[in-house]
């Protein structure tokens, strides 16, 4: 087995609630590190499978997109690790195997990488776009590779025009949980909302690549990141008290992604959220739970979060890390009204993403008042949370009259690429330095331990539920 990354969970919150208070917010930071070893090296013998899907619809032949895609796919194949099972698929009205021949994966080696590069060089553009059918082929290719890190790269330049939305949705339902998919939209004729839907369902990310010449570097980075994944099918298990309501769980770093609807019951008081595969990286989640209020002075475990990896070879699942979200009721307003800095930061980033998406949507629909208001709000929020990239992208869509109040004017001329870039990147967040929000030192129990010891008795995530006595 490869050396597993060390996982840690950290919880940032203000645990104090006023009398009768119910809603607890916390930022859960999950960090996976491999010590000094580089991520790709550390993953050297992790079982992995990669399918590269290149859009070869007719429109790819314009603006040098097809040539750029050939170079990008070749570069991606070139950095596949020895032993990784892979395939290259061309997508049009129907998907077509480019390498190898026949619906199967082959093991990466110097020879197969060379053959794959040769096959990619012969890619030609013709036909339409039916992404659901491409994903279904990838799903068939991955079949039987349980326990492996299964990852697909999807490149498209257009809308999913040659199958219905229902066909795409059905394909996503089928593939979801089977493999991960990162996507790139090249040019400006693809649909941001569509790639967001696809990659969100397949636990991946997407980016816009307006200029085809940037595609090669982007594919290299994306494939290297995929090769760095070491642990597949990680889940976040959240225990909550009886009568509590888990209001939401959002991924906040690296991107905003609302995971609330992804939960699957895993025990009497636990639900699991799939988090996909992990290499050396960290991600942050915003958790909100509503609990039954306790008496002043009482403490409650409002949520118990655990990172779960499936068992290998029929073994039991493993708890990689865990953390507590606490609640303590106090009549000291100075404590209960304080807002944790990281909770505030991520609340701002979440609202920022919403404001941008709603503002751009209103702008497309010709509702200038709403667009001005929402994008103005976005300008204020981008400044508050220190997201300079988004602030810069907003500047290309609106003229800022007053940054502090969010007074803006919509620009008359906005390039399609700038608008798509702002929309695409609205969910890309910035990290904050760890806040110094002080937790009163007088109550040691209120400081969430970074990694509390597992009680040896309770199987993970299945606290005893019977009501005794």
């Amino acid at each position: 087995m490869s050396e597993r990354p060390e996982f840690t969970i950290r919880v940032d919150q203000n645990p104090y609630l006023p009398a009768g208070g119910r809603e607890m917010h916390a930022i859960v930071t999950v960090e996976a590190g491999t010590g000094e070893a580089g991520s790709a090296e550390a993953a050297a013998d992790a079982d992995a499978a990669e399918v590269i899907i290149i859009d070869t619809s007719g429109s790819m032949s314009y603006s040098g997109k097809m040539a750029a895609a050939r170079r990008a796919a070749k570069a991606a194949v070139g950095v596949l690790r020895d032993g990784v099972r892979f395939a290259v698929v061309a997508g049009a009205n129907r998907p077509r195997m480019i390498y190898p021949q026949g619906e199967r994966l082959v093991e990466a080696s110097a020879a197969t990488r060379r053959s794959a590069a040769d096959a990619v060089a012969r890619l030609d553009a013709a036909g339409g776009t039916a992404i659901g059918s491409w994903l279904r082929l990838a799903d068939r290719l991955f079949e039987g590779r349980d326990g492996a890190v299964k990852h697909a790269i999807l490149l498209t330049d257009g809308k999913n025009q040659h199958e219905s939305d229902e066909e795409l949705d059905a394909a996503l339902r089928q593939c979801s949980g089977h493999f991960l998919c990162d996507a790139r939209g090249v040019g400006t004729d693809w649909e941001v909302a569509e790639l967001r839907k696809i990659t969100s369902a397949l636990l991946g990310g997407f980016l816009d690549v307006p200029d085809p010449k940037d595609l090669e570097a982007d594919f290299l980075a994306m494939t290297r990141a995929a090769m760095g994944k070491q642990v597949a099918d990680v889940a976040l298990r959240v225990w909550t008290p009886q009568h509590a309501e888990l209001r939401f769980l959002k991924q906040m770093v690296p991107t905003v992604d609302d995971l609330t609807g992804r939960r699957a019951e895993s025990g009497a008081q636990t639900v699991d959220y799939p988090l996909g595969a992990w290499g050396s990286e960290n991600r942050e989640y915003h958790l909100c739970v509503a609990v039954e209020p306790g008496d002043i002075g009482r403490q409650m475990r409002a949520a118990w979060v655990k990172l779960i990896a499936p068992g290998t070879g029929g073994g039991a699942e493993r708890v990689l890390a865990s953390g507590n979200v606490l609640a303590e009721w106090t009549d000291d307003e100075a404590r209960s009204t304080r807002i944790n800095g990281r909770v505030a930061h991520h609340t701002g980033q979440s609202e920022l993403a919403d404001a941008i998406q709603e503002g751009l949507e209103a702008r497309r629909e010709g509702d200038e008042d709403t667009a001005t208001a929402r994008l103005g709000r976005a300008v204020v929020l981008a400044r508050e949370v220190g997201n300079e990239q988004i602030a810069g992208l907003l500047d290309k869509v609106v003229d800022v009259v007053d940054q502090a109040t969010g007074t803006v004017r919509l620009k008359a001329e906005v390039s399609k690429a700038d608008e798509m870039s702002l929309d695409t990147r609205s969910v890309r967040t910035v990290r904050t330095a760890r806040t110094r929000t002080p937790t009163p030192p007088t109550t040691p129990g209120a400081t969430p331990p970074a990694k509390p010891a597992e009680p040896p008795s309770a199987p993970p995530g299945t606290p005893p539920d019977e009501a005794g006595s």
Partner: protein
Amino acid sequence: MNRDRSADARAHGGGHGEAACRDCGSWAVTADGFCGACGLRQPGGDEHAEAQLVVDGRPALGAGISDPGLRRVHNEDAFALAALPRGACAVVCDGVATAPGSREAARAAAQTASGVLLDRIGAGADPDEATRQAVRRAGEAVAALSGGMGGAGGGPGPACTFVSAVVAAGRVTVGWLGDSRAYWLSAADSYPLTTDDSWAVQAVARGEATAAAARADRRAHMLTAWLGADAGAFDAHLAAFEPDGPGLVLVCSDGLWNDLPDAAALASVALGGPDGEAREDGPLGAARRLVRAALDAGGHDNVTVVVIEFPPPDPTREPGR
């Protein structure tokens, strides 16, 4: 049902030996003290206290336990237990729940009083006189606590009950104010050594109510004397006697006697079950059985129990069992 897991939860319960949640009753309290069902943290280690004396390297002579009970989060009882040259002394104080700061009052009173008893009796003072001084000094310590908070807002200042026992030189001396009690428990005969300063006792004494009616009255537990800044100048009650056989001196808060007022019943719990039943020896075993009985009876209030053996083990004799 899931008996195995319950047993595990208890075994790993750390300070939570009885891992039933005090809030929802589930047998699911985890090692870090939170209930696995309702999530509430169970009262922590500083709410439960145990102490025992050691004679010749072995636990003997006396032991005390204070527990928050099953219904209260905080323990406003306090006790102190100390070895004397030829015996031991104990103090139990019960903070008055309606007065803020009473938990600190009970702790200050118990610590102060036991310090005075140790000093005075060690210096050869008469136990009666030492007890009077101990109560006086404890009262001063409680009054001093209200320095910052009494007066402001006109609310009640910190207050607590008091009961002490000095077991030394073949004699038992008790002093008290309020409704914490001392008992003599033995196989031959058992009886209370104190009379409560409470509405119920006074009403019966004045012939205004029968004992049963007084106990049922909602004023039954109203204190008529206590330690505290606004308590006025109460003189502690004193009583002394010389047992003519072996037994146990029990001092306790009302969390024990509310549900088990009868001295003979307390004796049978403290002295242990029927022959052959596995039981823990010594004063700590007796104290544990008494606390367990109070919890089994509902644990409505804080429970504090101190037990002192009579006669004290004689260090000049061979240290048999």
